[in-house]
């Protein structure tokens, strides 16, 4: 994700990344537990910040405790209790290391500390919270990113993002949004919102523009992985994890020589990441074992068929057509409709694909006219049908709607090649 994982200009540092994630992971778990106890994210964050500050002051002299997370949790809990006891004193009374430090013989087993991150994610994606804040709240609370980092990813001023995060957290407390699993009847709908928010972290890779590199999948894949450990029996969580992993497995191949944009069907499959593809297949198998089909599993299935080209050397278009048809049936969308038209063109010919696309656009109104993938596909199909004059115009309107500089130059090249 842009701005969150350090950008693509730096070589990957797996050890540093893993260490950073471990620290953030334990912070997320501690915050989830503390805020569930307090019903107040802001107070829990303050208490945890106090605990970290105290750790920085006392650990260098006393040594790192055997169980750092347990130590932090105990100190933070004491801070929360102090706040409850005396709201007025909390700004004036200094920390007392003797009182606030847990005894060293008090051992915590981190694995025994309950994991309340699902409750935290459900709060972040609660229907009473503005939808546009679901994903930023998750990145902030579950993964511990700062408002500045999240603001970059969403192409928004830091102050704006910070204000919105603060407002959302205050609202959680003021409105009394509970940190607990919803009733069985409500759970499917609430889980759908959690999945949407994680998916939101995945799609900002595509929504961001400008010169910054897009370090897909960044944290969406990580968030999806966490979710599958929290709800291992939810097939859609596995489907979403698989979807993000299949897509991120191809990240390197998306850029060719000189930073050129390379479309999926022209990508060099030896540059795809076989480990990630393997993990994605594991998730798809786990999803399949649950026996309930859903939108994210279908999208992952589509990605799996594309990734199979690395093994077979060809793309199984008829299977893709079936999957896209099914996806449009259970979760119709403009993007899904355009993809279905593209696959139809591969199976039944460019004329059939164009007919389907134009039918879709006729029903989509103004939104269809502004939808960049639809414009791009229309240009490609007109070119294939030899309708060069119309294709040139279609490429021009596609270029106008394309924000990514690499894809824009790719489309300009295709437009220029029409004349030859």
């Amino acid at each position, binding site marked *: 994700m842009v701005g969150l994982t350090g950008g693509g200009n730096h070589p990957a540092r797996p050890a540093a990344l893993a260490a950073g994630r471990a620290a953030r992971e334990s912070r997320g778990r501690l915050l989830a537990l503390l805020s569930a106890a307090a019903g107040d994210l802001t107070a829990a964050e303050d208490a945890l910040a106090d605990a970290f500050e105290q750790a920085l002051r006392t650990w260098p002299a006393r040594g790192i405790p055997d169980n750092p997370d347990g130590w932090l949790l105990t100190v933070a809990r004491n801070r929360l209790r102090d706040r409850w006891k005396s709201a007025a004193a909390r700004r004036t009374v200094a920390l007392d290391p003797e009182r606030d430090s847990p005894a060293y013989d008090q051992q915590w087993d981190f694995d025994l500390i309950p994991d309340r991150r699902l409750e935290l994610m459900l709060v972040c994606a609660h229907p*009473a919270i503005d939808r546009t804040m679901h994903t930023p709240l998750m990145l902030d609370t579950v993964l511990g990113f700062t408002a500045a980092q999240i603001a970059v990813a969403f192409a928004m001023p830091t102050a704006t993002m910070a204000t919105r995060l603060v407002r959302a957290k205050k609202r959680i407390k*003021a*409105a*009394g*949004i*509970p940190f*607990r699993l919803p*009733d069985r009847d409500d759970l499917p709908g609430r889980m759908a919102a959690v999945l949407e928010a994680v998916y939101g972290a995945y799609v900002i890779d595509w929504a961001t523009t400008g010169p910054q590199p897009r370090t897909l999948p960044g944290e969406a894949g990580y968030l999806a992985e966490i979710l599958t450990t929290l709800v291992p029996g939810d097939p859609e969580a596995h489907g979403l994890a698989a979807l993000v992993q299949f897509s991120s497995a191809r990240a390197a191949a998306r850029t060719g020589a000189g930073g050129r944009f390379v479309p999926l069907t022209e990508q060099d499959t030896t540059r795809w990441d076989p480990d990630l593809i393997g993990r994605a297949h594991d998730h798809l198998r786990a999803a399949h074992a649950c026996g309930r089909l859903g939108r994210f599993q279908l999208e992952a299935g589509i990605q799996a068929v594309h990734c199979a080209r690395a093994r077979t050397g060809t793309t199984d278009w008829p299977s893709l057509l079936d999957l896209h048809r099914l996806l449009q049936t259970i979760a119709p969308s403009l993007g899904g409709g355009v993809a279905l038209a593209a696959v139809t063109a591969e199976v039944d010919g460019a004329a059939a694909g164009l007919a389907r696309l134009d039918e879709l656009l006729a029903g989509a109104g103004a939104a269809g006219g502004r939808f960049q993938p639809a414009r791009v596909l229309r240009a490609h199909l007109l070119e294939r049908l030899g309708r060069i004059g119309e294709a040139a115009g279609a490429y021009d309107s596609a270029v106008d709607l394309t924000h990514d500089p690499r894809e824009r130059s790719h489309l300009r090249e295709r437009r220029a090649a029409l004349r030859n």
Partner: protein
Amino acid sequence: MRYALLMHYAEPAAGELSEEVVAEARRAFDVYAKALDQAGVLRLADVLRSSDATTTVTRRDGGLRVQDGPFAETREALAGVFLIDVPDLDAAIGWAEKCPGTQWGFVEIRPVATAFLDGRWSA
């Protein structure tokens, strides 16, 4: 937590609703209030007369001003209040969903900041 469920809806013109419709709405509110009561969460239930019966009083601009009608003319008017005491917002949403007023209007769920109970304002 105490929550006010504030019902807002467009007020019907005189004679717009048939007696049947009004009777049905009364029955629905009766069932709803009894359900809240039996669950032990109901603190207050008031359905208001239409806003043409409203009088508004203010001293904001200095002298006392008494005015006929609501302080702001809106298409949807405050039509009733249910005050409930439930553990959290999810529970409040659960009760608001079942409020008959949702069928023809909106129910706003507002947490209570402080309440005068047992002779003093609660913290």
